[in-house]
């Protein structure tokens, strides 16, 4: 029997399922006490609540739309059993293509679901809140992945997305803080103290976009004009971002007092946000999250339905042919890398203006690299990359969610989950992924 990727992934899935079942068994066994009146591990139930979003605003204690009680141990056993059977099938059949990514996604998704059930054994969890976190935390990863797609589809590897995001986060926040002070002076006007002042926040987002574009221009200049290896050029961007933002933060931002206190506000979309389950997940977010969803579908349209998209794909796959029909390859690459940087700038704005308000050193914490993994997972397709982003962000959402419960796994292991998942997915999926043919190659006439 030959060891192939499909078999490897199947084996890994079986291993994860078996470890999970033993860990849960062990952990719940330790939780049985005299007080809780629980006799055996089969008595634990995990309750999943779907709150009534419409009535919650009037009465926070409104009864949920649904409260599903799942027997913890039985559900997890069934899930793990299914994963083992599917993994066994993968090993036995050894399919050529098409089954590795779906199996891997379901191992991760169902594994996360089991960990959630495990954490809330004898407790309850709010499902709509958990899933809405997944979308929220997936926002910067998805936007970063889009930035990567624009660059790589036109043939430039962009490993500097992390740095572009970080710089954009820093200067986006600086632009918001400084413009707020320039417009309003030391204190916000009475009318704005409770509300949101839009003007500086919009200037902040624009500042972030411009910053991202400038960093990308440097990347383009180095890798197109000077033909620097694109990985090195991206690394230059990443290191420079750490220096510039750290320098700006200690020398200016820490001393600068801005009247602005809050970032972008929550914007529920009217009655849509009141739909149970779906409302909080899709229609009750902050502005950049909506923008992300628009950008995903927008880029999908532009990339596959417009002249610009066709040309972009052409110079990424076969620049020579594109040149022959009169497309200026390098000018197009310049433009697309800068557009990509501006998109990464939006992701940067998410960190300092939406996710939290303010700037910290290294606040992007590797999300730029995770978004590259999401891009590869989605095979350089915007919608696929969006799916990949949700997969990665669910690790982060799960990690934050279980902190509220007394959970057996050490928090450090939960915190390394996004990185471990990225590692596994990259190793398992990438061989099947085919990057744009000319990606990473300098174009010379």
């Amino acid at each position: 029997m030959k060891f192939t990727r499909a078999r490897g992934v199947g084996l890994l899935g079986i291993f994860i399922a078996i470890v999970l079942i033993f860990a849960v068994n062990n952990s719940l066994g330790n939780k049985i006490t005299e007080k809780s009146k629980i006799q055996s591990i089969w008595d634990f139930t995990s309750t999943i609540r779907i709150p009534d979003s419409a009535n919650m605003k009037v009465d926070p204690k409104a009864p949920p739309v649904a409260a599903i009680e799942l027997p913890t141990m039985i559900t997890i056993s069934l899930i793990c059993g299914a994963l083992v059977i599917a993994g066994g099938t993968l090993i036995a059949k050894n399919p050529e293509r098409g089954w590795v990514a779906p199996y891997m996604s379901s191992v991760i998704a169902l594994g996360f679901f089991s960990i959630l059930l495990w954490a809330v054994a004898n407790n309850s969890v709010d499902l709509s809140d958990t899933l809405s976190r997944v979308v929220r935390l997936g926002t910067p990863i998805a936007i970063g992945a889009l930035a990567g797609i624009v660059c790589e589809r036109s043939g430039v590897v962009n490993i500097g997305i992390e740095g572009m995001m970080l710089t954009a986060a820093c200067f986006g926040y600086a632009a918001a803080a400084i413009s707020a002070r320039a417009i309003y002076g030391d204190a916000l006007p009475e009318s704005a103290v409770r509300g949101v002042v839009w003007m500086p926040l919009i200037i902040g987002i624009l500042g972030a976009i411009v910053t991202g574009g400038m960093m990308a221009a440097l990347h383009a200049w180095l890798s197109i004009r000077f033909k620097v290896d694109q990985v090195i050029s991206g690394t230059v961007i990443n290191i420079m971002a750490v220096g510039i933002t750290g320098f700006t933060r200690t020398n200016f931002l820490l001393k600068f007092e801005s009247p602005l206190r809050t970032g972008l506000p929550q914007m529920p979309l009217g009655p849509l946000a009141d739909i149970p389950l779906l409302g909080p997940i899709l229609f009750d977010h902050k502005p950049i999250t909506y923008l992300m969803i628009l950008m995903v579908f927008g880029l999908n349209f532009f990339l596959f339905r417009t002249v610009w998209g066709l040309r972009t794909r052409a110079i990424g796959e076969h620049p020579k042919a594109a040149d022959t029909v009169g497309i200026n390859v390098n000018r197009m690459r310049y433009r697309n890398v800068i557009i990509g940087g501006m998109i990464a700038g939006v992701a940067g704005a998410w960190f300092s203006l939406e996710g939290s308000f303010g700037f910290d050193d290294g606040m992007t914490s590797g999300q730029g690299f995770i978004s590259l993994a999401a891009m590869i997972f989605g095979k350089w397709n915007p919608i696929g990359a969006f799916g990949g982003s949700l997969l990665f962000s669910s690790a982060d959402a799960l990690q934050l969610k279980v902190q509220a419960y007394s959970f057996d796994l050490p928090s450090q292991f939960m915190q390394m989950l996004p990185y471990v998942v990225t590692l596994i997915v990259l190793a398992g999926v990438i061989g099947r992924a085919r990057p744009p043919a000319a990606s990473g190659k300098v174009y010379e006439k």
Partner: protein
Amino acid sequence: MANEQQAPAETKKPAEAKPTKRSLPWLSEAIVPLLAILTAVLIGAVIVFISIPSNKLPAFDLSLYGSRSDWFFSTLPERLRVTLSAFTGLFSGAFGDWSKPSTIPGAISNTLVESTPYILAGLAVAVTFKAGLFNVGAEGQLLMGALGSVAVAAFMPQWFGVASIPAIIHLPAALLAGVLAGAMWGIIPGYLRAKTGAHEVITTIMLNYIALQIMDYLINGVMKDKSATLQRTPFIHENAALPRIISKATDPSLTGGQAYPRLFTTTSSTWDLRIHMGIIIAFVMVGFIWWLMNRTPKGFEIKTVGENPEAARYAGMNITGTVVGAMGISGALAGLAGTSQVVGLEYNLKAVFSSGLGFDSLAIALLAKSNPIAIVPAALFWGALRTGAGAMQINTGISINLINIIQALVIMFIAADQIVRWIYRIKQAEGGKITFNRSWGK
């Protein structure tokens, strides 16, 4: 190294051989890196000049100066003075204040101590550059090395239920544990790269974050010193410590009762130096890697795989083995860097251990053009820069992050040497351009 490869070709056509290249080959190799450093430092000076913290300058006052630009221009001499003091601060931090000779040994020893992990980690990255890999994971490999060595150095007697283990066993065991832990953290991305095509830049960065969490877990868990308020491991056993070269005897009340070894003990505080045997190990490793890369078939294989994987495959070389091996050697060297910090300098492992050493070592390897011998001056330069930066921050209030900007500029100018050549009108050398295995997939 590029010289050696070019040298035979040049001897064959003596008529056209350039005289400058023959007389001082190392100078023509070094000129671009030196100018790159110079340019980066000059840009750093401009940044300092513009962004001097306001408490070092006369405050802006609308009644005294007509506008902000008038204020900027009337403070020019003051700005120039602060900028210069930043660089004199940088120098005296790294090499001592030459008007006070007693500060010189301490400063130079600090620079050498700072350079020790840079030499080892720079070597680590250089080996992978040779194999066409871009190892951004020196940071994580270094952390794992530090963890491995501290586990053995602090806890090994406990495992065997004895009070102490002779230094002849304990010290090598601690070093070996660090090296193996680092190598393991290098082999994982190497194997993933060779077998699945997962790009080492992303996998090594993910492993850096994972290593950080593992360290956090161990330092707060099984390896925590229960008696300490700080998050740190217990002090390592004195038999597992690398001796300092010349220093005062340790004060056991500060080191948990351990008396760490010194080659020469002194009572003078001028000669109370932190320099330890780690630097000797680093120099030995430089020689070893030079020998490995230039005098052994393994080194030849690594270089061939890096320069032309297709040719290596046709020649029947084991690509997987070479990639995994190069990453393993790299991880081992980075692990040794972490180990020497633990058993030579810190004597325990704190939650804040390494600060961006991974990226620094990338810069050093690029600066040295992956030449093992050239790693030494590059690392010494970097050590001096880092040591001096601390003093600079105290003297002028300029953030230490300036060094990170200079570092990125140095990498940029080295990688895009056309910029430097264009600025200083230097002719293009043949070859010598750095490229990596580029595609994401296999």
